[in-house]
């Protein structure tokens, strides 16, 4: 089998495993990465919400915030794991397609 096809199989396995990135932190009650907190967590750890932070942090509203569907914050872990897998598939498809197109254009001699 060509190595590229093997890589896509590995990618499929990683997509199926991707909810671990959600379930493991949830299980060990770990929050976001250091310095990736929202205003609530900043308020808690620093004691105040920096003025500029408040203005900038809500600048962009991503269509699938934190790799889940909008309005799914309250849904349980199985639903969020499903959203995580869909996010992985969408993300991989979009990233691979854009890089493929850019590289295709650039590699044309």
């Amino acid at each position, binding site marked *: 089998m060509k*190595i*590229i096809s*093997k*890589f*896509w199989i590995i*990618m499929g396995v*990683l*997509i199926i*495993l*991707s909810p*671990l*990135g*959600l379930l*493991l*932190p949830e*299980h*060990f009650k*770990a*929050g*976001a*990465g*250091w*310095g*990736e907190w*929202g205003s609530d967590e*900043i308020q808690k750890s*620093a004691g*105040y919400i*920096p*003025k*500029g*932070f*408040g203005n*900038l*942090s*809500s*600048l*962009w*509203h*991503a*269509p*699938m*915030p*934190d790799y889940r569907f909008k309005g799914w914050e309250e849904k349980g872990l199985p639903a969020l794991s499903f959203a*995580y897998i869909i*996010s*992985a598939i969408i*993300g*991989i498809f*979009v*990233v*691979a397609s854009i*890089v*493929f197109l*850019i*590289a*295709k254009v*650039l*590699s*044309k001699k």
Partner: protein
Amino acid sequence: MHIPDGYLGPATCGFFYVAMLPIWAAASRIVKKTLAARQVPMLAIGAAFSFVIMMLNIPIPAGTTGHAVGSVLVAILLGPWAACIAITVALVIQALLFGDGGITAIGANCFNMAFAMPFVGYYIYKIISYRTPIGSRRRVLAAGIAGYIGINAAAFLTGVEFGLQPLLHHNVNGQALYCPYGLNVAVPVMVSEHLLVFGWIEAIVTALVIKYLQEHSSELLAEEKTSS
């Protein structure tokens, strides 16, 4: 390591966008010269791999999480300039579609993970594996060390960028306007968690893939393909 919106002041955000412009321009110019048409699918899959591996958050006892990035692996296989383009696309999509990393911080996040990390890792791999046969164990070790140092270099830069904010932007009472943590907090935290945990994950992933390729597709590791 994805800096969100609100942590970096406008000066820092602007600085890194401006710093990345010539880097992106150089990357497209150099990739145009060096990337062969048959390497295009590999670059796409490298970017996709980096994207999905960044979703695999690992919790650490301090109550936070982190992840591998994969930049060094892509740099070893396709060169640091190609890696710069691939990881940039992954980071931009993460910011725009998934809100992972801020849009004002895209320049800084790209500087750390799509520029510093693949370049540091690539040259460390080159130096350690210098003139060794493609199938040698030293190359596996070189890839692991390169991954480890590469992600730590990116983490260090991220810590410095966070830590400079209270010095650059604060009100008359000394209260920070953006990231509230100074260099004395941000740098040790970012560096130590990557030295202790996430650096090892990056090292193992990078080394294992190189070992797998040595056995199954060693032509991907041939020297002339990674010309920079």
